[in-house]
């Protein structure tokens, strides 16, 4: 349980402004970040995680200013960013690196509680039986679930996910999102998740933040997330679907496909 407060966050890459004066506060919720590619979703998440240094503005977690990467904030990446050559268990265990010294972690001398925590996390994402398997031998959906497990092992109070299901097929995407939501609920962590798929977002989110060209466009609850709002966010793309449809592609992806054809 935690409160994330973002105040006047701005990030510039040279002449390009990726984030402009973004402020919001989230509190024990499952929050979905929507917006086109390049709208600043990744930049925002990376700033909160400390992987990117903001140009100006402040980030507070439970009232304390944070900077740099830390175990309090778990991060789930689009390309999962796991170490592929080692097992799911060892990858989950890397979530505890900040608690252990380099030598201890190298020789796997973590205490029993930590090791159990890693296996518990894998159980949460339904991979206990596969814990010994090498990550490179797993499917994309399984790999992403290991990524969630690693985040959980950090014992975070806040979990960030940067398009966690963008490279997955519709059914894996749904199951990974299901596990992510379950993990957030079971471990009682606040979640900030960026998504491309509006229908998945509508299904899982408690609250929705819309980013466009680095600025916060809307901050709404499930009832207020109207098709008009979404249309406005993505510009006039006709295929953006809010209702349940047979496609999980966003209008943007559709458009790209069409251009390629």
């Amino acid at each position, binding site marked *: 349980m935690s409160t994330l407060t973002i105040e006047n966050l701005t990030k510039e890459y040279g002449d390009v402004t990726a984030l402009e004066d973004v402020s919001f506060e989230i509190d024990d919720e499952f929050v979905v970040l929507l917006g086109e590619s390049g709208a600043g979703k990744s930049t925002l998440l990376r700033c909160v995680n400390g992987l990117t240094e903001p140009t100006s503005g402040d980030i507070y977690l439970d009232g304390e200013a944070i900077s740099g*990467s830390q175990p309090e904030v778990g*991060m789930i*990446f689009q390309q999962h*960013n796991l170490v592929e050559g080692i097992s799911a268990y060892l990858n989950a265990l*890397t979530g505890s690196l900040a608690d252990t010294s*380099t030598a201890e972690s190298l020789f796997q001398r973590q205490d029993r509680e930590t090791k159990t925590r890693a296996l518990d996390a894998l159980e949460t994402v339904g991979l206990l039986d596969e814990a010994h398997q090498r990550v490179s031998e797993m499917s994309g959906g399984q790999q992403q679930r290991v990524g969630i497990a690693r985040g959980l092992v*950090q014992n975070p109070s806040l979990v960030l996910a940067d398009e966690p299901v963008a490279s997955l097929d519709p059914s894996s995407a749904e199951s990974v999102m299901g596990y992510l939501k379950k993990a957030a609920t079971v471990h009682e962590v606040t979640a900030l998740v960026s998504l491309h798929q509006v229908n998945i977002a509508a299904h899982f989110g408690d609250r929705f933040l819309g980013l466009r060209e680095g600025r916060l466009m809307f901050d709404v609850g499930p009832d207020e997330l109207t098709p008009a709002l979404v249309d406005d966010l993505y510009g006039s793309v006709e295929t953006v679907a809010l209702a349940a449809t047979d496609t999980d592609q966003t209008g943007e992806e559709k458009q790209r496909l069409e251009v390629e054809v």
Partner: protein
Amino acid sequence: MSSEPSPVDELREYLGFAAAGDSAVDRKLKDIKRRKTIRRLWVGLGVVAFVAVLRWSLTTVDFSLAELYAQLPEFAEALTEYFPPTTYFGVLPFVDVMQYWEFMLEAELFAASQVTVAIAIAGTALGLPGALFFGVMASERVVPYPFNFLFRLTMSVIRAIPALVWVLILIPLGGVGPFTATLAVMIDTTGYLGRLFTDELEEIADGPIEGIRSTGANKSQIVSFGMLSQVFRQFIAWLAFDLEHNVRVAISLGLIGAGGLGLELNVQRRTFNYTEMMACIILVILLAGSVELLSQRLRSYLRDGDEVERTGIIEAFVTAPKKIVQSSMGKR
């Protein structure tokens, strides 16, 4: 255009130096022809230069076909000593393999082989920590740009000096023998294996590094878990390759007196015992070939997703002598 082009005009046309054509296409065609002519001139010049250099090289080394011809009978004689003929079952002519075998036992060549392998193993093991240290520190991702070059430079200097020369340098330290050879292999390993490690580290993906960083890990944990864990299997594979290389180096180090199989080979050469010399060479091929086979198989097993490399048994043994020469010259 004139009605009957003269041969000179035709040649100019062919070479691309005729008067400019009318259309853009004509001009381009002429341009292409001229480029071709110029390219051919350069190639011709290159051939002439190469012939001149080759001539100079042959004169410098006193290359002489007449000499070869004059020496042929002597070489033929030596051949019968290299491969002593005998007849089996009274009729079947073949090389007298037993002569080799007897000499191998008499001169304890198998013990000498063990010395050679021991030099390689000890040298590789002792050189590994240095190789790891220099290899990792030379990577730009671990040590920032200008400083990593210090480590790169050290390894370059080590590699610039062949292992054969390292033995000569180290003789005052350890005398002429297997001990000095081991030290030389150790230094050689630091330079070579370290460089291979550095190259391997250049290939790693950013994702896992960021993933580990995001957990709040410290710098040395990011290096070990985010970076080294990505290349762990490749490192083991390179280690196997370097052990193979070092066996070949150890053989060649023996030739200048550093013990083992190479030493025995050189002793027999100096005393013109060609049959005994060939016995040594056969063992050299068997030794280098076996180590290579083992190392190749281990490496193909370790390389995830790679097609399993299957060097044929015969191929491994046939190419062994060539590789020994390459290894001793500091080439791979």
